[in-house]
C-alpha cells in the first residue's frame, strides 16, 4: 500500500502549500502533487529560483510566497513535482503521470487546489500568434525573466493588467498603451459596494498607486475601450483596432497581452462529479462547497481559487481550513478543535473577501465580450469551431452545451473544452433565453489531461500477463 496516502493535495500554489504545511503537523501520510517543476503555483511561480533583482521588480506580494515555500520544504510531505493528475474519482483514486509513467495513488482525503485560469474570451483575431494572455506574459517574466521585446499593448479588464504593466515598467519594458475594457456602467454599479471594500482598503490603495505610477510614467491608459480586434497576416498579429471615445483607432504592435479576469480551474472537480454552480457575480462556474471546503462528495475537498476567486491570501487561509477539515475527518482532531483552529483563518478569509464584490462588479466582463457577436470568430480553438457555427447549431435545436459539443465537436479537442466552455454556454444562453446554468457545462470526460495508450495499458504493471 505504498501508493496510499491519508491525504493527497493536488496543486502546489498558495492554497495547496498552505494546506500541506497545516496538515503536516498531525502525523499523517501526506502527498502534494504539482504539475510544475517547482512549487509556487501561478501566483508564486518561480518563487524559489527568482533572482533578487527580478523579485524586487515583481513586488512584495509576490515575495510573500517565499515563506510558504520554506515552510513546505521543512515539512515531511511527499512532493510529486512535474506530475500531472489526469483523473480523480469517488473511490479516492488519483491517476497521475510522472516521468512518462502513469500510476494510481489512493487517498482517504483529497484536497483539490488547482487554482484559477484566465477567463478565455473569444474576440476577432484572438487565435493569431502574438496574442497571449497577460497572465502568460507574467509567468514568462516570473519564471524566466522573459519579457516583451518591442512596445506592446495590454488590453482587457482586471487588476492583473495594472500589476503586470507596473512590473514591466520596473523592468524597463515599453508599453504602448493599456486598454481598459471595463465599462462605465460597471463602475456605477460597483460604487454601492465600495463601503464594504474599504474594509480591505490596502488593496484599493495598491490599485490606485499602480495606476498613478503608470500615469506618471506616461503610459497611456485608455478607458472604456470596446470592439477590440487583433489583425494580422500569415497568422501573425501586426496591429489591433478598437473603439475609444466613439472613434475607431488602430495601433501597430507585434504583441497583444489580454486579460479578462480569472475563473476557477474546475476541470478536475468537474470530472470527479462534484456539483457546480454558475456564479453571476464572478461570471464563472464554481464547485459547490461548504465553509470547510467540503464538496458534495465524501473525502473530496476544495481549496483556494479553484473554489471561488478570492485571491492568493484568501487561498492560503482556505487551504488551511480545508486541511483542518481533512485532519478532522481523519480523526486527528475533534469538532471543537476544528472550530477553534480554523477560527482565525476564517476571519482573515472573510476580511480578504471584503474587496471582492466591488472588484467583481468594477471589472465585470460585458455581455458584448462574453457573447461573441462576430460569427467568424473561433470559439473552440482546438476544433476550430466559430461562434456562427455554434449559433447555427442552437437554431437547429441543440439547446445545451453538451448537445453543441456532440453536434459540432467544440470542446472535444486536447484542451477538453477549458478554452471554450464558458463562451459556448454564454452563446447558448443568449440564443435560447436560458440561464447559463441551464445552458450547462460540458460533462467531465477523463482523462483530464491526455494520457497515452501505452501509459494506460501499463497502469497496473504488476498485474500484466
Amino acid at each position, binding site marked *: 500500500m505504498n501508493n496510499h496516502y491519508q491525504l493527497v493535495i493536488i496543486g502546489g500554489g498558495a492554497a495547496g502549500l498552505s494546506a500541506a504545511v497545516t496538515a503536516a503537523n498531525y502525523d499523517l501520510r501526506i502527498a502534494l502533487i504539482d504539475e510544475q517543476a517547482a512549487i509556487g503555483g501561478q501566483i508564486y511561480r518561480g518563487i524559489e529560483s527568482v533572482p533578487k533583482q527580478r523579485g524586487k521588480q515583481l513586488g512584495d506580494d509576490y515575495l510573500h510566497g517565499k515563506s510558504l515555500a520554506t515552510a513546505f520544504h521543512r515539512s515531511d510531505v511527499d512532493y510529486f513535482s512535474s506530475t500531472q493528475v489526469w*483523473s480523480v*474519482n*469517488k*473511490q479516492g*483514486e488519483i*491517476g497521475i503521470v510522472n516521468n512518462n509513467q502513469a500510476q*494510481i495513488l489512493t487517498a482517504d482525503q483529497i484536497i483539490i487546489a488547482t487554482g484559477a485560469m484566465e477567463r478565455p474570451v473569444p474576440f476577432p483575431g484572438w487565435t493569431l500568434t502574438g496574442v497571449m494572455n497577460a497572465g502568460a506574459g507574467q509567468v514568462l517574466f516570473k519564471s524566466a525573466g522573459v519579457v516583451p521585446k518591442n512596445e506592446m499593448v495590454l488590453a482587457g479588464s482586471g487588476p492583473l493588467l495594472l500589476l503586470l504593466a507596473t512590473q514591466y515598467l520596473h523592468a524597463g519594458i515599453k508599453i504602448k498603451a493599456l486598454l481598459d475594457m471595463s465599462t462605465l456602467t460597471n463602475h456605477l454599479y460597483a460604487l454601492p459596494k465600495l463601503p464594504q471594500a474599504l474594509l480591505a482598503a490596502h488593496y484599493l490603495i495598491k490599485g490606485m498607486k499602480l495606476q498613478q505610477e503608470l500615469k506618471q510614467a506616461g503610459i497611456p491608459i485608455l478607458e472604456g475601450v470596446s470592439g477590440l480586434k487583433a489583425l494580422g497576416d500569415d497568422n501573425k498579429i501586426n496591429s489591433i483596432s478598437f473603439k475609444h471615445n466613439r472613434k475607431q483607432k488602430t495601433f501597430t504592435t507585434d504583441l497583444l497581452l489580454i486579460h479578462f479576469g480569472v475563473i476557477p480551474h474546475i476541470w478536475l472537480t468537474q470530472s470527479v*462529479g462534484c456539483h457546480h454552480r454558475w456564479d453571476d457575480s464572478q461570471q464563472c462556474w464554481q464547485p459547490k462547497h461548504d465553509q470547510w471546503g467540503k464538496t458534495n462528495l465524501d473525502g473530496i475537498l476544495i481549496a483556494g481559487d479553484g473554489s471561488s476567486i478570492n485571491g492568493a491570501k484568501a487561498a492560503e487561509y482556505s487551504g488551511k481550513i480545508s486541511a483542518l477539515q481533512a485532519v478532522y475527518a481523519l480523526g486527528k482532531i475533534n469538532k471543537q478543535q476544528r472550530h477553534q483552529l480554523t477560527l482565525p483563518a476564517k476571519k482573515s478569509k472573510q476580511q480578504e473577501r471584503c474587496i471582492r464584490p466591488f472588484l467583481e462588479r468594477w471589472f465585470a466582463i460585458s455581455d458584448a465580450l462574453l457573447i461573441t457577436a462576430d460569427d467568424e470568430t473561433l470559439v473552440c480553438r482546438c476544433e476550430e469551431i466559430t461562434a456562427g457555427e455554434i449559433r447555427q447549431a442552437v437554431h*437547429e*435545436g*441543440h*439547446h*445545451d452545451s*453538451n*448537445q453543441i459539443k*456532440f*453536434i459540432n*465537436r467544440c470542446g*472535444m*479537442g*486536447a484542451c*477538453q473544452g477549458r478554452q471554450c466552455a464558458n463562451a459556448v454556454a454564454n452563446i447558448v444562453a443568449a440564443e435560447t433565453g436560458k440561464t447559463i446554468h441551464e445552458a450547462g457545462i460540458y*460533462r467531465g*470526460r*477523463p*482523462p483530464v489531461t*491526455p*494520457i*497515452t*495508450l*501505452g501509459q*494506460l*495499458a*501499463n*497502469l*497496473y504493471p504488476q498485474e*500484466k500477463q
Partner: protein
Amino acid sequence: MKTEVLIIGGGLIGSSIALQLALRDCQVTVIEKESSGRHASGVNAGGLRQLNRHVAEIPLTIEAAKLWRNIKELVDSDCDTCFPGQIRVAENSEDLKKLQQRQSLVKSLGYHHEEMITKKELYQLAPALSPHCVGALICREDGYARPYHALTAFRHKAESLGVQYSTDNEVYRLNKLDNVWEVRTQKGEFKADVIVNCAGAWANKFAEILGEGVPLTPKTPMMMVTERLPPFINPVIGATSRKLSFKQMQNGTLVIGGAYLAKLDFQQQNTEIDWKKLSESAQTVMALFPQLENVRIVRSWAGIEAFMPDNLPVISASSTEKNVYHAFGFSAHGFQLSPIIGKIISQLILDGKSELPIKAFDIRRFLRSFPN
C-alpha cells in the same frame, strides 16, 4: 393534449418509430425525460455492423443495412455514414476455427454477407495490424455513422413531418380509461390511443407498470477516443477472443470500445470510468496495434444502456395491454437496427403484423410459460 401514438423515449429508436409512423400520416408525440441522445443514442460507437449478429437478428440487420445505405432518402442527411467494412480478426488457429464455424452457420441459413478472408487479404485491407493475425471474418458492407448526427437527422425529419417532441419531461404514470391512455408527465397529462415504450435503460419501469416486468440490467460500456491521427486504417476492427471495437473516424480520431463496463450509480445516472478495465482495453489495442503506444487518449466515457439476459432486444406488442408496444433492451447493439425497428413497430401498430420475423424478441420470452 391528445395524440394517436405517444412514444416514451426520444432516442434513436423512439425517433425512428416516430418517423415511420409520421410517414404513414400518424399523429405522434415523443416524451423524452432529458434531451434526445442524452444516453445510449448519443454516446454509442455508431457501428453499422451486420457481422457476427445473433441469428435471430440477421433478417433485421440485413434490412436495416439497406436502409442505412440510402439513409439520405429517409432522413435527408447521410448521418456521416461510411462503409469500409467490419472485420473480426483471428489471432491464432483456434480463433480461425471459431470464425470458420460461424461463417458455415451463416451460410447454411442462406446468408452471404459474412465472408472469410485470408491473411494476405486481411493485411491488404488493414496493413496497420500487428503481423500475428492469421485470417478474418469480414462483412464488406458494414461501417459506421456518427450517432448524435444520425439521431439529429431522424429527429429533424420526424419533426418536419409533424412529430411533437416534449423534452425534459419525465413520464410518471400510465392509466387506461375507455381505451384511451392517460399519461401523467412532469409537464402535465397527455392522452393517446397507442403507447410505445422506447425508454432504453429506463424501459422496465413501464414494463412493470404494465405488469410485465423484465430482467433488464442497465450497463455502461466504456469508450475512449484519441487525438486526431493521419488516416491509417479504413475498416472497423474487432477481435475473436478479445473485447475490441476499433475504428478511425473520418476526422482522424480513433474510437475504441470493447464492452468493458464502467461503474454505475443508476439512481444518480452517474457513470464512473473503471481504470483497471479501461487499462485492459488499452492492452488489447496495444496487442493489435503496438505502434500506437504514444498516441494520446483525450476522452473516455460510458453511456447507460439496457441489457437483456440473452443480449437480444424486446421488440413486441405488450402481453398484458392492447395498444402498447415495446422496443428496448438492445444490449449495446441497437444503433444499426434502429431504422428497421421504426418500420417493424409502425407495422405492428398500423398493420397488426411485421413483415420480418420477430418472435425471438417477444416480451413473453421472459415469462416462464412462454414456449421457446
